[in-house]
């Protein structure tokens, strides 16, 4: 079946929904999502969304800007970061006007709390002097993302946006650098649909499921990354994978940074508050890469606690906070600890370990969410990307907590506005013949394949090898091992066999296609990581433990090259106001 829409948005998370709100009346817009809109992963964000509102104490967007640049280990593009931090205040007020139920302070203003890496100078007259944590994260208890996605979805209903829930997008139709639509499988019927469009936005979220321990949803299989990568569009900075320090032990379920923002502390086997060693000034509120590394170091040096299954964890201690704060401001994570680990945070510390959390890299875009495929700014006409799948890059080598929710509402909106302009000025580009050929072939191949490999087995092996070799600490040797394994798995992937051969709601088939996406995404991560021979932000190479601004102050662009080794090119980092300096907390 062929549909025609002026704008097609793939993914109904925060970025997709925010963009959909910008498509003007009179133009058709379809939002495709492989789950129901409110099920998207934005909803799991807990802690907050940052904006220098200054509701609790003196603050300025310029401090926010500085923190984000420093947090990114100076790899973030400063023009984009400036736009985001400046626009944050307007964006939050706008969300409030849309009806988002924020927590409030005594004055009736939006309440704010401290968050990892967000600071202000102790002495305002000395902006580059010593910095102290600042209350900057606007929140709604510990379900900020949940109320945000609900609010955005509510407003989409108000606007009458057309949704296609449970449509799994498999391919992007692009020819001569002009985007023409997408191909999707309607999960309920198994039918293949072509969406012919003037503009397409990818807001498909992250790829956490490449790793074994992850806070990401099962649907976070990197579909958007893999689709564009296969279509010859590069991916930027894929080596930077954020590990959140506090995932529930074994499960990886996120315990928000807000827990530390409210005063929680990390402790090792001996009950020491070990972050005092690694980040003497802001301690447990250091950025995520710093804490994750510190935790791994503690475990390696024998100060972790061994669980019955042989894996190690550390402790997040909230017991000193008191019932009032825990129940009022952190109810959600209290529930998680109780349900999943049988631990009552009021009385005992929570066992935690670092968990795969966020993709800093992604589809390269400019500050208007337009996809640019090289260092000269060549665009793919009509193609946009926003949210986790995009790399603007505002997060550089490491994202600060709360900046992801900010990213989606700021750049989702900017992308939406550009799309609105684009649909007014352009006509439908002709649809190439057999646009759905790749999808049809893939589906047929998987359904008819009668090999002996199980999808789940390959997926598990991929997740293991990535977790072991391409996570917090990396070595060239380890990454090479992972690459070899990925090659092997890709070959075995051609020999799979699925049990469900039907058409209707065939999740077996969907999972098989997703596995293909995981493999392609993993490949781009591993090659990018192998290539960058320095340590920066979340990318830590034990064989190259120093940051190397001389050679590596640049973005990686990785291009697929058939079955051969991918091609790697570079793009300069935009530096406007702040020159790279040593990053310590």
């Amino acid at each position: 079946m062929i549909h025609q829409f002026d704008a097609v948005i793939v993914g109904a998370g925060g970025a997709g929904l925010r963009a959909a709100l910008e498509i003007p009346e009179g133009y058709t817009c379809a939002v495709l999502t492989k789950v129901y809109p409110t099920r998207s992963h934005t909803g799991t964000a807990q802690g907050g969304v940052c904006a220098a509102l200054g509701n609790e104490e003196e603050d300025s967007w310029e401090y926010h800007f500085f923190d984000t640049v420093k947090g990114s280990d100076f790899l973030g593009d400063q023009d984009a970061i400036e736009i985001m931090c400046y626009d944050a205040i307007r964006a939050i007020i706008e969300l409030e006007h849309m009806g988002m139920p924020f927590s409030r302070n005594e004055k009736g203003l939006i309440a704010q709390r401290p968050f990892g890496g967000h600071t202000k100078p102790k002495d305002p007259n000395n902006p580059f002097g010593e910095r102290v944590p600042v209350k900057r994260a606007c929140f709604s208890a510990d379900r900020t993302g949940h109320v945000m996605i609900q609010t955005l979805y509510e407003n989409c209903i108000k606007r009458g946006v057309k949704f296609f829930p449970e449509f799994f997008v498999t391919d992007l139709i692009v020819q001569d650098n002009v985007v023409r639509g997408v191909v999707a499988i309607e999960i309920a019927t198994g039918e293949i649909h072509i969406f012919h469009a003037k503009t397409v936005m990818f807001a498909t979220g992250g790829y956490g499921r490449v790793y074994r321990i992850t806070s990401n949803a099962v649907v976070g299989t990197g579909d958007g990354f893999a689709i564009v990568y296969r279509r010859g569009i590069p991916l930027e900075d894929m080596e930077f994978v954020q590990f959140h320090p506090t995932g529930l032990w074994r499960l990886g379920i996120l315990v928000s940074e807000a827990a530390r923002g409210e005063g929680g502390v990390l402790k090792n086997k001996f009950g020491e508050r070990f972050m005092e060693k690694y980040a003497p000034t802001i301690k447990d509120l250091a950025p995520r890469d710093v804490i994750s590394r510190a935790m791994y170091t503690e475990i390696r040096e024998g100060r972790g606690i061994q669980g019955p299954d042989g894996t190690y964890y550390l402790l997040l201690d909230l017991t000193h906070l008191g019932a009032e704060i825990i129940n009022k401001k952190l109810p959600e994570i209290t529930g998680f600890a109780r349900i999943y680990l049988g631990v009552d945070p009021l009385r005992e510390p929570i066992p935690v370990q670092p968990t795969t959390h966020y993709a800093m890299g992604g589809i390269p875009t400019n500050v208007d969410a337009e996809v640019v495929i090289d260092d000269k700014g060549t665009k793919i006409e009509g193609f946009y990307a926003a949210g986790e799948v995009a790399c603007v890059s505002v997060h550089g080598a490491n994202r600060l907590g709360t900046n992801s929710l900010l990213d989606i509402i700021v750049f989702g909106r900017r992308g939406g506005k550009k799309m609105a302009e684009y649909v007014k000025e352009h006509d439908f580009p002709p649809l190439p013949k057999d646009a759905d050929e790749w999808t049809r072939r893939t589906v047929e191949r998987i359904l008819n394949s009668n090999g002996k490999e199980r999808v789940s087995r390959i997926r598990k092996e991929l997740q293991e090898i990535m977790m072991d070799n391409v996570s917090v600490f990396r070595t060239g040797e380890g990454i090479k091992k992972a690459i070899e394994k990925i090659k092997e798995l890709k070959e075995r992937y051609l020999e799979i066999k699925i049990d469900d051969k039907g058409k209707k709601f065939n999740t077996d088939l969907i999972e098989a296609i997703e596995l293909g996406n995981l493999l392609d995404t993993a490949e781009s991560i591993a090659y990018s990581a192998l290539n960058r021979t320095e340590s920066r932000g979340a990318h830590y190479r034990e064989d190259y433990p120093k940051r190397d601004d001389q050679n590596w102050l640049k973005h990686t662009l990785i291009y697929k090259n058939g079955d051969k080794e991918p091609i790697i090119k570079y793009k300069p980092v935009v530096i406007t106001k702040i020159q790279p300096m040593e990053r310590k907390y």
Partner: protein
Amino acid sequence: MKVTLRIFRFNPETDSKPYYKDYEIEADPKDRVIDVLHYIKNEIDGTLTFRRSCLHGICGSDGMRINGKNMLACSILLQDLGYSDANKTYKKPLVIEPLPGMPIIKDLVTDFTDFWKKYETVKPYLITKSQPPERERLQSPEDAELIMEASKCILCACCTTSCPSTWSNEDYLGPAALLKAYRFIFDSRDEATDERLDIIDTPNGIWRCHTIFHCVQACPKEINITWHISQLKKKLVEREI
């Protein structure tokens, strides 16, 4: 420990009638029900179909009926269902069925079309008539607290499908939609209270609630939905008098 899962199966392409299939598996008391389902799908029978996404009870995808009661498969451990002895073989099967009273698409997957229509009926968005201020609208912490619990709802449909009033009349708005109505009626910033009260004050609306508390027991986010609905009823009565 050994547990038998008795799972509701129905494939519209091959089965004329739904049936139950037993799977005997090795599990740990600390496993979630969703882990066990994943194990079956991954290792034993790939045709088993169910929805899931975030796996920690915030996306609301995997609502199903487990041992006779609606809950999220990702938010319940086997040990909380009485399977707590790691060395035992349990005879009593763990019965897993789709949400009751909904059309069934396949296995544990149900059709949510009506559920979303009901949700949309109560106008689930802030309506304001006055010009918004330059900064945020002010709201006291007490007023914010009033809608905090209601805004926890994850729209998993566990409540609505557990309500006997929905079973007898599938057009009843149901707890989820009424809770959403509460969320906006009691939002100090909303300016369409009257319009909203009219929507729920119908024979298929709030008056089909008989405080049976099935919704409260089913809610995975522990929202006291009945309390919120009783506030709405009082508001409606106040308006009439």
